[in-house]
């Protein structure tokens, strides 16, 4: 302990002993003192270029109308126009509601399944590595392949699901062509794709649970359900928060699978915000309005995360 105290004293005393005169203080001394701030500059500049500039550009786009003429882009400042388009966009309302349902249902299901699987696999005495490897496979499959694969399985006439149903003498289901089933089908695919992601996060946390605390609970006579509710879930809270946050952000941005499975149809039944955004940007070529829509999506994601974190915090506290 002694050297630490001595070092601390020296550090405190050093500036007082070597305090330079007023002339030096304005030059090299100031540079020396502020070096630690200057050393941040390259990283700050890089961050500004890579993060802030695109965001500023997006904001600038969102208040502009961008047209192309004489081989170049022409920007005009029209903030009201894009806002007007946003408020009068009929498809957006459906897309927002669908996205909300999609995020809430798929993330909730993935959390329940992922947690259940993590707890089950955590109990295994051998073969955990193999299970983890098998579980990771759906995450590794490219979304385009997932979309094509599930589209084939959902095919009304030739798909494996309807073949199985018909084999059992049950009427085939219009998985992707019925307004009441299409969103459920899309959610099912998302759950299949992303439950392993939640599992991996929670499995690591389950493996790290303090055995002595669990043991103490058991000694005190806690039932399995009580242990889960009062010991395991509170201990897993940080991991649950990470999983919910990541999954919610990713679910809000879901695009590839929906695009390949239904393109947002039939009608607007599977139209999600990201799909609508794609259509506005790339099919309708409305760059200004597309940027405004992007900002609205970012705001929606932030709002959703804040609300869900608060709700989760309240439920854990209760």
């Amino acid at each position, binding site marked *: 302990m002694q050297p630490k105290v001595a070092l601390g004293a020296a550090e405190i005393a050093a500036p007082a002993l070597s305090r330079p005169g007023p002339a030096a203080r304005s030059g090299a001394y100031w540079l020396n003192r502020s070096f630690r701030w200057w050393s941040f500059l390259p990283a700050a500049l890089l961050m500004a270029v890579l993060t802030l500039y695109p965001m500023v550009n997006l904001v600038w786009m969102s208040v502009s109308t961008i047209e192309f*003429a*004489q081989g170049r882009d022409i920007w005009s400042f029209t903030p009201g126009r894009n806002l007007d388009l946003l408020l*009068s966009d009929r498809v957006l309302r459906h897309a927002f509601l669908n996205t909300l349902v999609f995020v809430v249902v798929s993330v909730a299901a993935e959390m329940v399944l992922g947690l259940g699987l993590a707890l089950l696999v955590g109990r295994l005495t051998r073969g955990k590595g193999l299970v983890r490897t098998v579980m990771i496979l759906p995450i590794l499959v490219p979304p385009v392949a997932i979309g094509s694969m599930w589209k084939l399985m959902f095919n*009304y006439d*030739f798909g494996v699901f309807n073949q199985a149903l018909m084999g059992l003498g049950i009427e085939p289901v219009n998985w*992707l*062509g019925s307004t009441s089933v299409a969103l459920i089908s899309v959610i099912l695919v998302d759950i299949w794709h992303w439950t392993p992601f939640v599992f991996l996060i929670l499995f690591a946390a389950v493996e790290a649970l303090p055995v002595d605390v669990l043991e103490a609970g058991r000694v005190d006579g806690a039932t399995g359900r009580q242990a889960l509710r009062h010991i395991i879930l509170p201990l897993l809270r940080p991991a649950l928060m990470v999983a919910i946050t990541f999954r919610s952000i990713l679910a809000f941005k879901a695009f590839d699978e929906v695009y390949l499975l239904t393109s947002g*149809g039939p009608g607007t039944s599977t139209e999600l915000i990201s799909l609508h955004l794609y259509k506005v940007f790339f099919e*309708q070529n*409305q760059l200004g309005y597309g940027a405004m829509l992007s900002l609205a999506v970012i705001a929606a994601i932030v709002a959703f995360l804040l609300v869900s974190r608060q709700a989760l915090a309240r439920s854990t506290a209760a």
Partner: protein
Amino acid sequence: MTPWRITATALASATLATLTAGTALAQQGAAAIGKHPPISILINSSPWYAGFEKVVGLYEQQTGNKIKLDVTPFGGMLEKARNAVRGSESPYDILNLDTQWTIEFYEGGFLTPLTDIDPGFKLPQEVFTYDQSGYWNQEKRWRTAEGGKLMAYSPNGNVHLFLYRGDLFKEAGLKAPETWDDVLAACGKLHSPPRAYGAVFRGEKGNSIRYDWMPFMLGSGAAITRNPAAGDYTVTINSPEGKKAVDLMIDVAKKCGPPNIAALGQSDAIQLLATGRAVQGMLVAAAWPNFEDPTKSAVVGKLEAVPVPRPASGQHGDAIGNWHFVVPKSVPDDRKKAVIAFSNWFLTQAAQKAYLEGGGIPVRSDVLTADLASNPKYRWVKAYLDSQKFAKQELGYGEGPQVEQVLGLRLNQVLIGEMSSAAALNAAAKEIEEIFKKSGRKTGTLPPLPES
């Protein structure tokens, strides 16, 4: 001389003669075209691509000039083309643009008119102009040869073909469908789901249903706008004729189609016809090779083609869905000249014949009329040529993609029973009018249809 020596000498002479003739032909071709730097083409991986690839190979073989093909799925074409023209120098010397995309590129000033590269360049008389979609009149903001510059020519011109199972029709004593009533009558006899669907077309939201509705709309005498060529963008889609066209399509879908018709895209419709699950179907001409390939089709030699049927009290109508070869402005001059050299060669009768034989859809009428009528392999050609007489371009304005989104959604909503035809057309008319208003067009709409 022994017989063996005679045979060997004859074979050697024949080989030499063939090689000499081949070389002479190649040299002749090369001499006419000249030597040019390599060029690259952004091309889509559509069903006719195989034919185009073969014809490009032939060009390279005959002229020694090189062409690089960037084969891209349909979904990625537009963004690649946009990125190419918005940069300082386009990585592609030729872009292939779908008909709805052309306006954005013409109007944006991103392209070099072909006659600016070579004032002597002109399309041979026999080449289809597909309702003059390769010309652009900047003043009128319209695709027309009248006062317009030649910006593009088509490497592929799609129209719908109506396909039906000749064998089953014969067995059932049915004649080739001329009207939609004939189609419905055939469904009455042959529609037996899920084993056999009477008729299929694309009902999927977006471009699919919008494009497949066009024959119903044009055949019923309806129009999206009053006279856009003359600057009158009054929306007329919610007319009684428009409603008749929607009702007719829904009738055919309900009585003949599969339960999931509202989710059917092009590949699904091809699949149903190729597997023999559908008896009739409306598809673009480019899809034809899928049905004659024994590795993909269970109905080789069984499908026949006619122009898309007309309403019983209407006329034939169809919308053209052609592709356009264009040259970005930012391409260096020597490569622009190389494009013109290739184009002159590609549009010749010989090249177009090779294109057809390779599986492409030629764009010269004389290739299609030559000696093909008697060849069963090309039995779709007559229907294709007949359709050219009445097919026309639709959505030939900058707002086309937005209008397509509106129609693609509203028609799909009628198909799934979410809206009545009158309500959908009234809503579409209002939304399309808004789009034109925001662009500053002279617009308006018809009084709403009764929605009872």
